[in-house]
């Protein structure tokens, strides 16, 4: 069974390559569907496969760039990417990320920064999860009220409508975002992307998990456009990150390529699935992913307060994340298959 293992040229370790492909497929599906890189899902998987952690982040980012490119191309063809908005946001994201990263270096000198950062991350995820589920609840009550009145709810109706307040701020220059379908002050996406970039820099994450809800609730993008535009951002920041981490010698390119084989296929499945699932279906699944991520971080924090629980919590958080990746990607894959089968049957019926 030697053919199932491959020797990594840089790190010199032997890795079970089908594991890398499977991991790539899982995170590819989820990434293409939610519009995020998904580093928090990949690291535990790489850990289990015996991948040296010194190379984990760089390898992850390198494969993420390729995967996001595949998803962005597909989302672009579906009309889900507002390139103008994406380009405007890059300014804020890059500057914010660097400010955040510099700040964390400064905080590291104070000490205990890791603990505070993790709690900040938990707090942020609680806010995002609350936003998502409060929005879903509000939309459902609007739907009920419309039904009770014998009407049908407007397809573009949303639960939380904070973006409408932000759109009222007429600070010049104003810009129209055609694909996303709104006009707002150009400062709104720049400032918000600066804040999400800053948070991503502080937390040491890519930022897709924060940017996607920000695009929906504060900027006012429809869910599908938020997913596509976020992936455009992930693609550019991924390429930049792949370059800088590889320059530091922390990328195992062969592993990234193997993962990319699975991730490129998975990304197509995840992206095509957005065709068949309504915006609010994506939001609910995203909320579940956020809750899973939050629980896994809390599990990593528990050993700091209760001694002797580290081994158990490490295993539990890994099982939780990989279980979540498996279940979510399975759900998206099944929904994509169902949707595709319906579409093909409808085409045959017409012919």
């Amino acid at each position, binding site marked *: 069974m030697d053919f199932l293992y491959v020797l990594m040229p840089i790190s*010199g370790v032997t890795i079970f390559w089908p594991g890398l492909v499977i991991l790539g497929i899982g995170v590819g599906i989820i990434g293409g569907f939610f519009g995020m890189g998904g580093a928090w899902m990949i690291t535990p998987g790489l850990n289990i496969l015996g991948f040296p952690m*010194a190379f984990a982040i760089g390898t992850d980012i390198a494969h993420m760039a390729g995967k996001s490119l595949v998803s962005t191309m597909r989302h672009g063809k579906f009309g889900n990417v507002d390139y103008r908005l994406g380009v405007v946001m890059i300014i804020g994201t890059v500057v914010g990320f660097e400010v955040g990263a510099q700040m964390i270096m400064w905080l590291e000198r104070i000490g205990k920064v890791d603990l505070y950062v993790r709690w900040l991350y938990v707090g942020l995820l609680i806010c995002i999860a609350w936003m998502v589920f409060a929005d879903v609840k509000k939309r459902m009550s609007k739907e009920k009220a419309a039904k009770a009145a014998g009407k049908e709810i407007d397809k573009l109706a949303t639960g939380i409508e904070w973006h409408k307040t932000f759109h009222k701020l007429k600070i010049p220059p104003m810009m129209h975002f055609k694909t996303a379908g709104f006009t707002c002050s150009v400062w709104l996406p720049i400032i918000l992307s600066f804040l999400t970039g800053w948070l991503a820099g502080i937390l040491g994450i890519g930022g897709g998990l924060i940017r996607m809800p920000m695009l929906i609730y504060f900027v006012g993008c429809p869910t599908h456009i938020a997913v596509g535009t976020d992936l455009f951002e992930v693609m550019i920041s991924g390429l930049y990150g792949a370059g800088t981490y*590889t320059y530091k010698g922390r990328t195992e390119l062969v592993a990234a390529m193997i993962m990319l084989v699975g991730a490129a296929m998975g990304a197509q499945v995840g992206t095509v699935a957005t065709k068949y699932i309504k915006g609010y279906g994506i939001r609910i699944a995203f909320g579940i992913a956020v809750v899973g991520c939050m629980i896994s971080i809390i599990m990593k924090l528990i050993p700091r307060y209760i001694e002797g629980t580290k081994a158990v919590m490490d295993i539990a958080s890994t099982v939780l994340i990989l279980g979540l990746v498996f279940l979510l990607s399975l759900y998206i894959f099944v929904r994509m298959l169902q949707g595709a089968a319906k579409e093909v049957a409808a*085409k045959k019926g017409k012919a």
Partner: protein
Amino acid sequence: MRKLWVKITGLVIMLMAALPQIAMAAADKAPPIVIVADTRKFTGWEAWFTNLYNESHIYFALLTVVVIPIVGVCLGLLADLIMSHIGIDLHSRELAEH
């Protein structure tokens, strides 16, 4: 107007020169250890690959930045072919919901 353009160009050049430095400093969280790939285990392209890594991280980084998008596009096109063959419409999305 010309002065303004000179100032803007100067600012952009300065920013472009400064940003990579800031970025490098910011991302330098990993412990400062030098990793050397063991080239003795490899022959052919793998030996060339590991040598490239050991000799120049800049060229290795350039190779990564070029290869990743090319492979991504190729694999994406392959997946496109398969899905189109199945009969899925890959050019439009009918669902229009917020």
